[in-house]
């Protein structure tokens, strides 16, 4: 018995009729998975301080997205997990002792002013997590620059201290710098995510393996920092491991929406970020330059896109001599 297709309603759409299984939620989930090691390290070093900030951010981010989309009468998109990524990233840039209510405000700012008002995912010019962080830094400068030593004993004791970059910037001769190994493994003062270089790299390796990021941005970003440190006779490893460079280079500057479209553009972007980071670290008012350098390069992304249009196949200047 043959079913006649005349009764079967055929669907028509443009080619291609085949696609990869990759979708936006999967991309976002990969980023979340990649950040889990660093998040666990934060909880290990800063215990309850870290956990509560991460929870607040990861809950309030999709919540504010849901509320803002409802108010704006837009389609609800929290199931693409992009808000969760923003929340988690913001949490990792915050100092452990920040009061949770300030963290919550930061997340709301990140989602609403950093993303929703521009039209939602894909339309924001600035990295939303960094927008949140920047607003918090200028609004609560004291809370945003209070650091504690990692909590090593059983008792929860918050001992305020300076970050490695603070020590260098303010020339605190009495303070001891952590060793390279301590900085690499995460046993140092800093924001939740800027501690363990090792775990950030493990997360980044996962993203490379899953083909979610390529070397262009992180290598240019970290590369020029290394290069400039070397040329200016500064401590290369220190500048590489200190502050938010590793987190920034692999997780913030690689944000698709706010970085250039082409690979060439991404290299320029990375170089600019690294240059700006060093400039702020050495000459600027802040001890750390990663956050603002990325925001500044975000601003330049449309221009970079315009100037890095690839040369098409068969373009006149591409023609080699014909045999």
């Amino acid at each position, binding site marked *: 018995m043959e*079913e006649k*297709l005349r009764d079967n309603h055929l669907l028509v759409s443009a*080619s291609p009729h085949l696609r990869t299984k990759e*979708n936006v939620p999967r*991309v976002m989930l990969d980023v979340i998975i990649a950040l889990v090691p660093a998040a666990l390290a934060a909880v290990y070093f800063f215990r309850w301080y870290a956990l509560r900030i991460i929870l607040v951010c990861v809950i309030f981010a999709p919540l504010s997205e849901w509320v803002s989309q409802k108010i704006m009468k837009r389609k609800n998109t929290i199931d693409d997990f992009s808000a969760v990524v923003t929340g988690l990233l913001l949490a990792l840039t915050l100092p452990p002792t920040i009061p949770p209510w300030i963290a919550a405000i930061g997340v709301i700012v990140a989602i609403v002013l950093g993303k929703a008002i521009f039209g939602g995912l894909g339309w924001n010019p600035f990295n939303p997590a960094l927008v949140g962080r920047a607003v918090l830094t200028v609004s609560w400068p004291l809370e945003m620059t209070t650091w504690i030593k990692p909590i090593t004993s059983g008792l929860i004791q918050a001992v305020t201290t300076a970050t490695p970059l603070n020590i260098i910037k303010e020339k605190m001769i009495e303070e001891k710098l952590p060793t390279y190994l301590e900085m690499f493994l995460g046993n140092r003062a800093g924001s939740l995510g800027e501690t363990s270089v090792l775990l950030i790299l493990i997360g980044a390796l996962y993203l490379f393996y899953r083909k979610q990021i390529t070397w262009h941005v992180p290598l240019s970003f970290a590369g020029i920092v290394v290069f400039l440190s070397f040329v200016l006779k500064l401590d290369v490893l220190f500048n590489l491991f200190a502050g938010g460079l590793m987190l920034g280079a692999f997780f913030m500057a690689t944000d698709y929406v706010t970085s250039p479209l082409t690979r060439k553009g991404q290299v320029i972007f990375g170089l600019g970020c690294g240059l700006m980071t060093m400039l702020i670290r050495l000459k600027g008012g802040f001890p750390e330059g990663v956050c603002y350098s990325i925001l500044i390069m975000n601003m330049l992304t449309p221009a970079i896109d315009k100037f890095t249009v690839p040369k098409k196949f068969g373009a006149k200047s591409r023609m080699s001599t014909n045999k």
Partner: protein
Amino acid sequence: MIRKLRGGIHPLEEKNTKDLPIRQATEPKQVVIPLQQHTGVPCQPLVKIGDQVNVGQKIGDINAFISAPVHSSVSGKVVAIEPRAHPLGPTVLSIVIESDGKNLVDENVRPKGNLDSLTPAQIKDAVREAGIVGLGGAAFPTAVKLFPPEGKKIDTLLLNGAECEPYLTADYRLMVERAEEIIYGMKLLMKALNVQQGIIGIEDNKPQAIKTMITQIKKSDSTDYNLRNQELKKIRVISLKTKYPQGSEKHLIKVMLDREVPSGGLPLDIGVVVNNVGTAFAVYEAVVTGLPLIKRTVTISGDGVKEPGNLEVKIGTLFQEVIDQCGGLNGKVEKVIMGGPLMGLAQYTTEVPIIKGTTGILLLKDSGIIESQPCIRCGRCIDVCPMYLMPTMYALLVEHKKWEETEKYSIVDCIECGCCAYVCPSKIPLVHYIKYGKAELLALKKKI
């Protein structure tokens, strides 16, 4: 010199019909022969309702350079000349012939000669009269390619045995089963073009085809004595790294000869002519038996058909008839595609005829239609574009109706291969935007 294909994708091959030999489809009771089955000017009918026609009889032609005549694929009576559904979308004036089942061959169908006896001009004439068009799907009149304009010197003929789309295996089976005829047809084309170099490009996922073609080249060296020995050695096979869209004409030339067809130009601008292996086979038939293009090998596949296969079908047979011969539908089918899954055309009905450019009929249970998300500027489309373009820009500009700016981003250079939409995580219908943008840009230019 072999270059790497820059960009492109690796979809699943799904070549589940590759070991199924070509089998003859049953004779159709009625055929619908559209007067346009080629790129170019449509034909005018040469017969009228009630006329008796024979197999291979010319029933449509037009006096225009870029055109190809159409012939009857059965013997019988012309019962209608009217617009009929066509797989490329709108209805096209078609000649409907009721077969008498006798398969009487037209008197004009007789051997035209052979490689020795025919001059290049005679070969070109035979190709033209046989209505041969590119059988890889584009259906460009082959004879036109054999008449390069003044000043364009052709030095190489490339034969396209890549068949890079998933599912399709018609060309593969032709190479495995009819290598002799393909090589002969290739030599005819080389003589017509007066070229010294002929190279066949075959993707490396077809090792058996590569073997049979190489064996046939060696065998034919001794039998085709008119082409002097040094010319025979100029035919060779290149194994191409399997990647979509390696079978794209421009990319075949780039990878095999390291020459880039200039934007807005044609292969003959850089001394090359490319033909599909099926086309070479048709040239052989047109010359050696005298039969014009009235049948072709089609792959019927997909998870929506019970018994996939490679069938040799008469042009004008309706899709539905051929599907029935392959076991019929395998449950509910959402999409019927003419061609491959990446560039093929979805059909709204199966009451459309198989035309010269029908490489395959795919029946898919899942239409693949999915709601799209906003662009996240990931750049994957740019990474995979084999023409080095920025597909995401086209979607953005077309959405905002900025037609002129699509031209600045070279939208006309897009070959609509589908690599971009294939990789897009937001499932944006990029090729659809591009087709729309191209059409609007063209309309805009016509107005100016």
